[in-house]
């Protein structure tokens, strides 16, 4: 009986315990955002009272302040605006490039593909200083267009890489058959390959959009006016007046801006991981 307990129950308890500890540690900040969002200020700024429970009635004041008296909604709009344009540019540049590298240029395609992937490793913190001058010279300082111009440099390399893997898995015979039917190589690409690659393309859309919401360095460097901010910079920098942090509204903003992105990313996770593993996993 005792050995059965040790053999069967022991590992199970350890398993549950490990998962529980990690879930609590990793998700705690988000739980804490939920609590702070609905707390009255008197409750939030009380050193004595138990911070884990609502000592005073939950309130919607923080959300009211966030939506009515800050530029939060504007920032969300800015982020969607930049996101949509960057997605469009990324798709226009990376779909044909990935196809060409996967199919048309043979051994060279492979090398160029890896070269493009390596540019993904170049971080914004290496380029933000010269790019800030370029943006100023182009007259795009403080404008969202500066981000529309620069963000594809972060998204195109990884997208090309992801799509290359995707296009390689499509049998060549499909295009050959289409070309027998009188389509050109490019026509076969547009009419046959693109439609059946929709799930790969959708992955790139989500990846690009997520990256636009996550980027911080360029948005902080290029844009100063409060009304032109992206959510990722507007919330941490402009929901602070002088030294006063509006913690309730801040936490509400973090939560609202994070969850949709997190949800979408989660749906496509396995595909991103396939891209990140650089072929080190043969699935």
């Amino acid at each position, binding site marked *: 009986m005792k050995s059965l307990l040790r053999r069967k129950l022991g590992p199970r308890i350890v398993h549950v315990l490990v998962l529980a500890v990690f879930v609590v540690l990793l998700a705690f900040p988000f739980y804490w955002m939920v609590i702070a969002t609905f707390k009255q200020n008197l409750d939030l700024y009380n050193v004595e009272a138990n911070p884990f429970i609502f000592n005073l009635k939950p309130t919607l004041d923080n959300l009211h302040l966030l939506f009515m008296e800050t530029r939060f909604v504007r920032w969300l709009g800015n982020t969607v605006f930049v996101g949509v344009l960057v997605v469009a540019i990324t798709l226009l540049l990376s779909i044909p490039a990935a196809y060409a590298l996967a199919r048309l240029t043979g051994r060279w395609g492979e090398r160029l593909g890896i070269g493009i992937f390596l540019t993904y490793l170049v971080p914004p913190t290496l380029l933000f200083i010269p790019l800030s001058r370029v943006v100023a010279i182009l007259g795009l300082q403080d404008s969202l267009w500066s981000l529309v111009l620069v963000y594809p440099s972060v998204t195109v390399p990884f997208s090309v890489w992801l799509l290359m893997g995707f296009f390689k898995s499509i049998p060549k015979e499909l295009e050959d058959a289409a070309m027998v039917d009188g389509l050109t*190589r490019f026509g076969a690409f547009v009419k046959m390959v693109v439609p059946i690659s929709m799930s790969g393309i959708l992955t790139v859309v989500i990846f690009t959009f997520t990256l636009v919401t996550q980027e911080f360095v360029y948005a902080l460097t290029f844009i100063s006016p409060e009304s032109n901010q992206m959510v990722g910079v507007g*919330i941490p920098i402009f929901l602070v007046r002088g030294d006063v942090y509006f913690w309730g509204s801040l936490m509400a903003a973090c939560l609202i801006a994070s969850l949709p992105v997190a949800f979408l990313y989660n749906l496509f996770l396995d595909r991103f991981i396939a891209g990140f593993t650089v*072929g080190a996993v043969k699935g």
Partner: protein
Amino acid sequence: MAVAGAKIKSIGAAQSPLLGFAMFGPAILYILLVIGAPFVLAVFYAFSDARIGSTSLHYVGLENFRSILQSPSFRKALWNSVVFTISAQIIVMVCANILSIALEKKFRGRGLVRFLILLPWVAPVSLGTIGWKWILDSIYSVITWVLIWAHVFKPYSAPMWLGEPKLAMASVILVHCWRLIPFSTVILLAGRTAIPKEIPEAAAIDGAGFWRTLFQINLPMMLPILSVAVLFGTIFTFTDMTVVYILTAGGPYDSTQTLPSLAFATGIQGSDLAAGAAISLFLVPVLVAIAYLMLRVAHRTEVN
């Protein structure tokens, strides 16, 4: 039919160089203009006296490098970048290995658990970090409250987590780990599921226990994927400025400054483009080393 297929392929190949170039040319051109050119400009700035608001530009040789190498805040930043990166990778690898083992088995609610665990990675960094800033607040920190409740500290005598150099450094490392663990976990999970089930099973029949299977079979087989996780993790920590900028802004007294955050403070906030560019160029050797190692991993798996 086979002959016809070969013919079409050769027609395609004959047409392809031009069409191929037309299709990948725009992407390559864009990358050269927005990544390549600014990089050259960064090197150029680093050897000049460029400042925001000044139109004159002179070649000054190694002067910028000489002056930043002599500045104590640069040495501190370089040291911090190395310390943050290495300690975060060690902690992340241990935790991610444990967590990926725990997540490998199917169980009820696995999808929800995975979503919760992934939150730190998929939510925007700056927003997750501001959540930590509230958790580590000097007065209203929940950690402080718990420690006072547990009688570890007397009321009002608890340390300020972000206000003391050692604790602030620990906090930065903590947030980096918090953010990277989910990413490394899913990468390792992909690696674990790719190990053929028969091998650990055969080892178990031969009498190998959990630890022996782990250290002598699973981990060695996962070496390529472990290195991918470490290489990406290193880049994400070493080149990051968001966590430091939001959590401590490099303070107290420059004690948590890293190369990227110092480059920002010098080049943008301090208007000294030349020195800022020179500081950020110190990221390059690490990036080159990582790119090289990444290629080796990719090449080795290709050969196998």
